[in-house]
């Protein structure tokens, strides 16, 4: 048996790294940990891979033919902007479920008993979820190209569209993180995510132009951040964007609206998630 010293062995890394470097290292370790699960069980990625593919096929070939676009254009091209938004929002329940699971398994208590940076647990999780969002975005773009979606604008515009989408997606994971801090069981987190996510996605122009909705519903759909994101992506990709003729401010300035919504989500939910995390700590 090797003489593994169990205690009183050399003190931790002699090099005294700065706090920021440790924070980055902790976030990287924790993000990698979350991503390692994907490598071991790729089926956990179904909600950002199989699910969007099914939705694209369903809307492109089943419902799409019955959805007229004001101003005309290809529904297949229209669809991908909305699908992108849906795919990003769909990861938030996963953020909540993962955090609730770590809380209830005692893993987060273990992290908190280590000299790990306080904010690393939430940051590591949201960054790992951003990586899954990138994967989901690539999948949506790939299946879009397969059904005839094309980018008709410049590389810079397309990059801006993807950048805005991922910014919003990242901000949105903090809402998931808050849910994760508030709910007690992974099942509750899953259901709560679904309850919030379904109306958020469908009461928007993600799949259907808002012009066909009842008058009382239209303002809700037009101010829904999902509509702004879908409209911004369509406008930047050069795809059909019927929302351009809607007078509501977010539909006239979808890029600004996405930036604004992202800033609001981050400003509200990131500190709230950290606060809830700390409060759990205080007991």
């Amino acid at each position, binding site marked *: 048996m090797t003489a593994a010293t169990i*205690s009183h062995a050399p003190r931790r890394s002699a090099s005294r790294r700065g706090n920021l470097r440790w924070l980055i290292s902790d976030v990287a370790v924790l993000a990698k940990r979350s991503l390692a699960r994907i490598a*071991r069980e790729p089926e956990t990625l179904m909600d950002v891979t199989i699910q969007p593919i099914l939705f694209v096929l369903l809307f492109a070939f089943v419902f799409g033919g019955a959805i007229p676009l004001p101003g005309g254009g290809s529904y297949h091209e229209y669809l991908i902007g909305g699908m992108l938004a849906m795919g990003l929002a769909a990861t938030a329940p996963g953020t909540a479920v993962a955090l609730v699971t770590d809380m209830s398994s005692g893993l987060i*208590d273990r992290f*908190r008993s*280590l*000299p790990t940076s306080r904010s690393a647990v939430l940051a590591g999780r949201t960054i790992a979820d951003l990586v899954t969002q990138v994967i989901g975005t690539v999948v949506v773009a790939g299946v879009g190209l397969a059904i005839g979606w094309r980018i008709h604008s410049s590389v810079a515009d397309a990059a801006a569209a993807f950048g805005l989408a991922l910014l919003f997606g990242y901000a949105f994971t903090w809402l998931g993180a808050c849910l994760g801090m508030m709910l007690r069981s992974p099942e509750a987190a899953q259901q709560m995510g679904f309850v919030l996510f379904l109306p958020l996605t469908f009461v928007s122009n993600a799949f259907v132009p808002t012009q066909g909705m009842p008058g009382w519903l239209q303002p809700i759909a037009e101010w829904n951040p999902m509509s702004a994101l879908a409209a911004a992506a369509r406008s930047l990709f050069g795809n059909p964007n019927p929302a351009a003729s809607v007078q509501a401010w977010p539909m006239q300035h979808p890029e600004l609206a996405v930036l604004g919504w992202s800033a609001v989500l981050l400003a509200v939910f990131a500190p709230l998630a950290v606060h809830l995390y700390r409060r759990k700590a205080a*007991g």
Partner: protein
Amino acid sequence: MGEIPAIETERVTKSFGSTHALSGLNLTVPQGGILGLLGPNGAGKTTAVRVLTTLLRPDAGQARVLGFDVVRQAAEVRHYIGLTGQYAALDDYLTGRANLVMIGQLGRLGRSQARRRACDLLERFDLTQAAGRAVKTYSGGMRRRLDLAASLIGHPEVLFLDEPTTGLDPNSRAVMWEIIRELAAEGTTLLLTTQYLEEADQLASQVAVIDAGRVVAEGTPDQLKGKVGEDRIAVQLAPGSDLAAAVAVVQAQTTGPVDADPAQLLVTAPMPARDGITTDVVRALDAAGVRVSDVTLRRPSLDDAFMMLTGHRAAPEPAPAGGDAGREAATEQGGAAA
């Protein structure tokens, strides 16, 4: 060194709503000491561990680890402690090795240092074979061993083990005991909570019995056993048997004073620590022609210990009539909250 206690709490209180989980906890453990914190569910054991490992903020009082205040100097405390909770806190989807490396890195070991340390600990805890498998495939005993390994990865000077063997089969429990003894022998300060008198007896150099969030008795295991009373042998005679003959036999086989209850035909005596004592007593009784209907050994259980030390039963099963019932119920809720 040596002057500063490894663990020190002064009048620590912690309430969850109206439930007082800790109500003035005073503990001192010298460096290198092994304190067994003994108590029933809901006594406040886990709450005490959570306060000392910086996971819970006490409402009042002071708690220090190696002289560092657990609230104001929590970051320093975390550098010196290891925690193994009641449930193995591991990532089920990572391999055993990846769990250790991750926890090592988060515990401020460099990457290569964490890897080396993980290798050593896996071998030490007989987990090398399973090191490449996801933890969710591990047995309960393997999980506990890995969990303990994880809490050791940062070379803690003070180790907290919250019911380290609860739910383990006897074999795995024996393995854990052996590991804990070795840690103690190497000089690590240990605080372990347990519901089992025997476990405290086996492992701890010092035992604190806690009830309703405060220490009700303290001492070495032997001192506490002395308070609780020793093992006794009880001989139930068949109707019509000769009580005096039975007393004589039992007196000859055991050492202490023999109690005889003529009404119940029951003879009891302190039980000497000798193998085969029960058989000897039965044989001798048979040889003397005394007819016996039952011979039992009565060991002081934790319940007995509690009865003795606290004057009330440990677990509030169907609440006995009396003033303590309300307090016991509150204690039990404290356990749930803790």
